[in-house]
């Protein structure tokens, strides 16, 4: 706890440097009236999806593969409760590692639809179960946007817009909250009256982001109570049940302070931030291999940095290998893909065969706008050629022997286990 506090204080200044997130209370109240819902919602949902895709193990759902976008609320609520009930044993499984992460975008869709109550709960409900299939991301983003508009028109209240205006600061909290909603729901001291409309779990989980956002927004107003300083922040999420429907009336968060806890509004925001960060660190722990026993932010960050560095070096090494193996960079597409296709089910040679036809004889250098369009999905040979030419023109090459030695010596990452790049590939590939 001491480490957490110190590191939290240290990182508070870092966080305040972020775009508009330094003092979430003021920022959010400032933007509440003026922030447009759609881009924020889209961004939130996009981040939710990616986050869910990354940490989908937390939200494994029983009906995961159902992609139907239209479903009735009752089926959805039952699925939600099942999903919520599934959350409790999942954290226990995380250290051992899950082999698969079922995702369900229709699940989120249904969650989003059914949580229209309580102003903004809809969009947050989708956030609470961030289990979205990333390949459906665009479709989902569009559908979610429509849902957002729908909800915005329906649940016309200030809290809704405030939540919409909170940007991606909510999404992390929603994701973090989702993991805790069932396990920590019982921790909330102030349980609201049972919600007859939806299941209690669903209310909890769908309102987690709502009230974590509300908490940060209104913590200044309700100074006399503060959420207890648990490391997982389940308290602040647990009271969500009562908040989002009350938020329509008063926009306040009643958080009961534990004995001996500070009730300062600042400490509230700090605590919330700390919990979010610790949540993220836990998830990162599962991603980075060999970090299950590591505790503490500094060591975890070190491991993450090492891992990212090693991955980036692997990419460099492999690209160097590719560059040496084929001297003309014209990869034999059909030959390659006939083998790779076996590993990538569903890719037909016809889908790749379009690529030669896409190359235009005259390549016009495109505007940056084209790159934004290219980023939307389709690879454009014009873009790539321009990019590669820019790269080649801008940088100067380093010495090759230096590069090779650097690669070989830097390749050892101890925790990579079976994936370690030994010297063998370099000896095979660099025959010149």
């Amino acid at each position, binding site marked *: 706890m001491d480490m957490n506090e*110190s*590191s939290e204080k*240290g*990182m508070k200044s870092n*966080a*305040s*440097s*972020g*775009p508009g*997130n330094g003092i979430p209370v003021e920022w959010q109240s400032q933007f509440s009236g003026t922030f447009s819902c759609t881009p924020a919602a889209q961004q939130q949902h*996009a981040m939710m*999806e990616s986050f869910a*895709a*990354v*940490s989908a193990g937390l939200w494994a759902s029983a009906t995961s593969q159902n992609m139907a976008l239209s479903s009735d609320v009752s089926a959805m609520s039952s699925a939600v409760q099942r999903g919520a009930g599934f959350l409790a044993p999942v954290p226990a499984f995380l250290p051992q590692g*899950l082999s698969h*992460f079922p995702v369900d975008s229709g699940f989120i869709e249904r969650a989003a639809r059914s949580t229209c109550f309580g102003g903004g709960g809809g969009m947050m409900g989708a956030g609470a179960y961030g289990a979205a299939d*990333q*390949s459906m991301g665009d479709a989902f983003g569009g559908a979610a946007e429509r849902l957002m508009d729908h909800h915005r028109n329906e649940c016309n209240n200030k809290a809704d817009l405030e939540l919409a205006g909170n940007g991606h600061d909510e999404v992390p909290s929603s994701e973090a909250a989702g993991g805790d909603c069932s396990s920590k729901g019982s921790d909330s001291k102030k349980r609201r009256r049972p919600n007859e409309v939806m299941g209690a779990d669903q209310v909890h989980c769908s309102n987690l982001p709502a009230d974590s956002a509300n908490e940060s927004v209104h913590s200044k107003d309700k100074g006399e109570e503060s959420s207890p300083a648990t490391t997982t922040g389940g308290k602040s999420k647990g009271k969500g049940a009562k908040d989002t429907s009350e938020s329509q009336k008063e926009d306040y968060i009643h958080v009961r302070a534990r004995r001996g806890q500070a009730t300062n509004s600042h400490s509230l925001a700090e605590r919330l931030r700390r919990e*979010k*960060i610790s949540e*993220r660190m836990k*998830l*990162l722990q599962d991603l980075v291999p060999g970090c299950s026993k590591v505790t503490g932010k500094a060591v975890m*960050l070190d491991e993450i*940095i090492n891992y*990212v560095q090693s*991955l980036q070096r*692997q*990419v*460099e090494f*492999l*690209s*160097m*290998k*590719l*560059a040496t193996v*084929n001297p*003309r*960079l014209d990869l*034999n597409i059909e030959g390659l*893909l006939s*083998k*790779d296709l076996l590993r990538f089910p*569903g890719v037909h040679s016809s889908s*790749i065969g379009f*690529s030669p036809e896409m190359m235009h004889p005259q390549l016009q250098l495109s505007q*940056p706008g084209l790159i934004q369009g290219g*980023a939307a999905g389709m*690879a454009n*040979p*014009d*873009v*790539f050629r321009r*990019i590669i030419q*820019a790269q*080649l023109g801008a940088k100067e*090459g380093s010495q090759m022997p230096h590069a090779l030695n650097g690669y070989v010596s830097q390749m050892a990452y101890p925790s990579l286990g079976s994936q370690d790049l030994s010297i063998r*590939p370099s000896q*095979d590939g660099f025959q010149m």
Partner: protein
Amino acid sequence: MRGPSNNTMMAFKRGFLRSLLLSLQSSKATMSLEERKRAVKSSADVAMATARGVAGARWPQAILSSSSSSSPSRMQAKVKRCKNIVRRCCHKRRRDGNNGTSFFARTALNRSSTEVARRLVKKRTKVLRRMIPGGDLLDEISLLHEAMDYVVHLHAEVDVLRLVSKALQRSTTSGLFHAF
């Protein structure tokens, strides 16, 4: 391999492979080794960014914007650096105001373990910011979020590149050439 659902990562890998091959095809024919390696690497990065899509993360956009423009990016880099400097100054001023001591006095008196831990964490978050594309502008929480996302996709990229290189190796060393 752990990570998001297999379907998601398969889709990403397919898209990545497609973009990678496209970009390699469209590159110049005659290049030195260094140029080729850089071409492969940059096309791999861009392919990863496009396969990921702009939804849900900042790093794809950062990769694409950094690779697409040369002189505007210099301006952007300068702007970013200025922002960082201002940020750092503001933080120091704010922190010093809170603590009541000057910057130099604090560094001299820095003995407690919490201070050490805090400085370690800050140093490492700075390093992490540098490594993740577009990480300079992110706050602490979304930085971790981005790191997660980036790690997963980087991992997939490494897998795909390894497959491709293995396939190439097999095709060249065994002497089999598949006709178009």
